[in-house]
């Protein structure tokens, strides 16, 4: 008798925001579903990414508020900060959510299989746990294995002095000085966080501007505001060498106009992520990959029958909300649900939770021009926003990019207080294919920071009222 093989309709490898959401959708549709997870349900997002960093950033915001309390008439001395308490809040938050995911799996009748999965053939998985293998078969296998920090040649993450986001999230104490290598969303957030907590931060970016995925106007304003807070920023600069020196590290920075050595206590390597495609059995099955990510079509299908990939491992943008959305689309498509729409990658909002926050959707001004659009651009400075002034956060900008002929909102770019909570307004407008007229005709509540969105639309039409 052959070894017992458990059979599912759908098996998901990885319990992150892509995988667990895909599994729930499959179970809702009545499919027999299992999730294989090696470590933590909830994945990086819940345990080591989006959520715990937001808990830390809230602490940074408190530090910032305390520093400027005099503006609101307060004064205090002997303010004490305990790093461990803030880290504890962050870990507790992550723990709560992870157990919430376990509950959701149970509630939806999804089997959670602990262990590491490997494809052992078409529609077949071997799960290893404690050196014991179990065999599974599923008509549909969805890979949602995520991504991990990318390393730089010559700069190895040692977990002690050179950190990845894992270590950066649970410091035992604050370093005096910190070098952040890479200024994408993760790098910018950690730079902002540690700077607000009083650490001397240096930010290095190999490209010509920080936040390189954002519209240059927004990125340049972010740089100005970062520098105003005392951050040192090097763009167009590489970190060539890192050597231990005393209790810290000596880093050699090299750029066109830069050739200097800086000594810091710690460094964070945040130069992007790479897909977790190793040891999955992809090579044996001939699964096609591209630049470290699994190649898929708009429904998440790989070139191998019954095999799908979603989320980070299926390619950038590596964002939790993109993964979740892809998971739902992939499952609904394979289950034959009517009216499934593929994810429009141009309509995924990008958010960076530094201070001030940065959020964007769609094309930058330059991308719109490159795509051949005749455009109209609108801007509104937060300095003219009553609400932003009242909360003493009046630094920022909202920028809109419209097609001049059709009025289509091609892109929107925001920097300012709580803009990550507001960008969905422009997202809905794009999904509904609103033109500038509908946005202009929408009543925005007063006083809110979001009025800046309205003014930026009016400005593109040459009708700005308050600037």
């Amino acid at each position, binding site marked *: 008798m052959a070894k017992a093989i458990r059979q599912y309709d759908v098996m998901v490898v990885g319990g992150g925001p892509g995988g667990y959401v895909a599994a729930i959708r499959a179970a809702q549709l009545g499919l*027999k579903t299992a999730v294989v997870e090696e470590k933590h349900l909830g994945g990086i997002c819940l345990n080591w990414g989006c959520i715990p960093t937001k808990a830390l950033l809230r602490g940074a915001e408190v530090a910032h508020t305390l520093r400027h309390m005099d503006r609101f008439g307060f004064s205090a001395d002997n303010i004490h900060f305990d790093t461990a308490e803030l880290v504890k809040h962050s870990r507790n938050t992550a723990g709560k959510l992870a157990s919430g995911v376990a509950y959701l799996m149970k509630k939806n009748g999804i089997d959670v299989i602990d262990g590491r999965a490997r494809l052992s053939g078409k529609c077949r998985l071997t799960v290893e746990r404690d050196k014991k293998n179990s065999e599974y078969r599923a008509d549909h296998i969805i890979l949602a294995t995520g991504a991990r920090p990318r390393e730089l040649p010559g700069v190895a993450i040692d977990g002690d002095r050179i950190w990845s986001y894992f270590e950066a999230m649970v410091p035992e104490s604050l370093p005096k000085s910190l070098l952040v290598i890479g200024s994408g969303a993760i790098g910018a957030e950690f730079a902002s966080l540690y700077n607000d907590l009083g650490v001397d931060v240096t930010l290095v970016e190999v490209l010509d501007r920080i936040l390189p995925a954002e519209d240059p106007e927004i990125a340049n304003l972010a740089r100005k505001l970062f520098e105003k807070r005392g951050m040192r920023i090097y763009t167009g600069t590489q970190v060539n060498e890192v050597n231990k020196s005393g209790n810290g590290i000596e880093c050699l920075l090299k750029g066109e106009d830069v050739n200097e050595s800086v000594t810091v206590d710690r460094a964070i390597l945040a130069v992007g992520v790479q897909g977790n495609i190793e040891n999955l059995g992809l090579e044996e099955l001939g699964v096609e990959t591209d630049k470290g990510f699994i190649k898929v079509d708009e429904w998440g299908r790989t070139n191998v029958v019954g095999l799908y990939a979603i989320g980070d491992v299926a390619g950038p943008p590596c964002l939790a909300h993109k993964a979740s959305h892809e998971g739902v689309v992939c499952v609904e498509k394979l289950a*034959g649900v009517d009216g499934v729409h593929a994810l429009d990658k141009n309509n995924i909002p990008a958010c960076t939770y530094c201070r001030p926050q940065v959020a964007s959707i769609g094309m930058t001004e330059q991308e719109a021009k490159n795509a051949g659009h005749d455009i109209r651009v609108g801007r509104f400075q937060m300095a003219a926003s009553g609400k932003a002034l009242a909360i003493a956060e009046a630094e920022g900008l909202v920028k809109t990019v419209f097609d001049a002929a059709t009025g289509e909102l091609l892109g929107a770019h925001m920097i300012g207080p709580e803009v990550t909570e507001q960008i969905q307004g422009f997202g809905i407008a794009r999904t509904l294919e609103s033109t500038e007229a509908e946005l202009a005709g929408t009543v925005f509540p007063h006083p809110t920071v979001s009025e800046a969105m309205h003014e930026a639309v009016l400005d593109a039409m040459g009708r700005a009222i308050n600037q």
Partner: protein
Amino acid sequence: MSEIKALTVPKWGMAMEEGTLVNWLVKEGDEVSPGDEVAEIESSKIVNVMETHVAGTVHRLVAKTDETLPVGGLLAVIGDKDASREDVDEFIASFKTKPGAVPARDSEAPAPKQADAEPGQEPRREKPAAASASSSPAVAQPQPARGGIPESLQSGGDDSGVAATPHARRLAEKHGINLTNIKGSGRHDRVTVEDIEKAVSAAGGSIAVRREGRDEIRQPASLADDSGVPATPLARRLAKQKSINLHDCRVSGSRSRVSKADVEALELRRRGGGRVGDAHVAGVDGQVVEEIPMSGLRQTIGRRLQQSKIDIPHYRLVADANLDALLALRRELNDSLSEANISVNDLLIKCCATALMQVPDCNVQLHGDTIHRFRDADVAMAVALDAGLITPVIRCANHKGVAAISNEARELVTKARAGTLKQEEFEGGTFTVSNLGMFGLKQFDAIINPPQCAILAVGAGEERVIVKDGEPEVAAMLTLSLSLDHRVIDGAVGARFMQALVRVIEHPGLMSA
């Protein structure tokens, strides 16, 4: 005048002539909008959820649970919130079923003329079919005068040969009506429930269609607070445990209180028979028995298969096939194609399609006295679900490659499990393959799924010792059992098909010939 619209029995598929209301999902007074689920309707094939295509307030649920109506028959009245009871009564009284006028998959029947009248214009006062003065639900379902079943309809010889819908036959049996007295107006002149109603009515009798079947059992439970209903403490506790509302119990005991016996009697009525207590304990050895009501789908499956066994003179042909060549082909295909993961069953579907092309007399359906012979092989495959059996169809399998068949089969199985199969994906089919090989069975017999005339039952492929050229040899062997309808396919024709099938399995190159 306010706008009023009819919600009518939808037509799900060509063969559907009437539908039975299984359950209302809305109640009177509810607001509905297009796409809302309003009722479960059972056709002779499936139970499906019906969505409304019209918006408004549900004014009257005309059809009662378990009532059988023809396609286009009035289920409910939906209209503007301010429509008066009189308007609704008027509408119902003047509503006429228009068989065939309702497009497939459309639950919205055109409203009778006066509902479309110009605003402010008085509707023409046609003579209502039933007294409309009262606004009681009786008006909602006009019934002829009392009188029972006239004798003229009860007499006659054996009526088992009369073509009738399953619902109509059940109704006739229940009321002692001989079907030879009824003229059928359904497809192929089958007798429908409506035909019986008309005939009874024309002969001066009456027949309560909606009381037919299980209506007693399915009466909706009261929801009102029953704390004021006089009851014995034991009856009260028992009712609570059984989720029975004391308002629904008939008081039979002394002192005008609901007693334990009254609660149990209600439970018995709801279950539609059996002894009280059966639900918990039965059996001579004290064995505990769980009573599970059959779902609509289960009942449908049961009825259809029973009908098939009764109507169709089944006979069976059994043959063994050597699987070695087919397994070698499967390995070769799977090793060289990453876009397909082909199973033995996928290959057998293709083999059947090939053999059906060679013996087209087996690629048939029987409709009344007409045999439909098909040009292409639409091969259905039996898929077991928790709720029952469903047979999605691979269309034109004779034209498709094995990889395409395999991927389509996987997609159909997933859709079947997710409940997203569309009607056209499981209706029709000119031949069925049922495979229980994964359970290690050697051989079994399958029941034909009418109007098809043949079904192949596939056992497990296994290594057996065979004799070849006088020498024992080990080969992968498969036992096939083919059930055939002798009314349509004679033994020799069936045997020719089986021979062709075994030949293509053993020489799979013929699939591409």
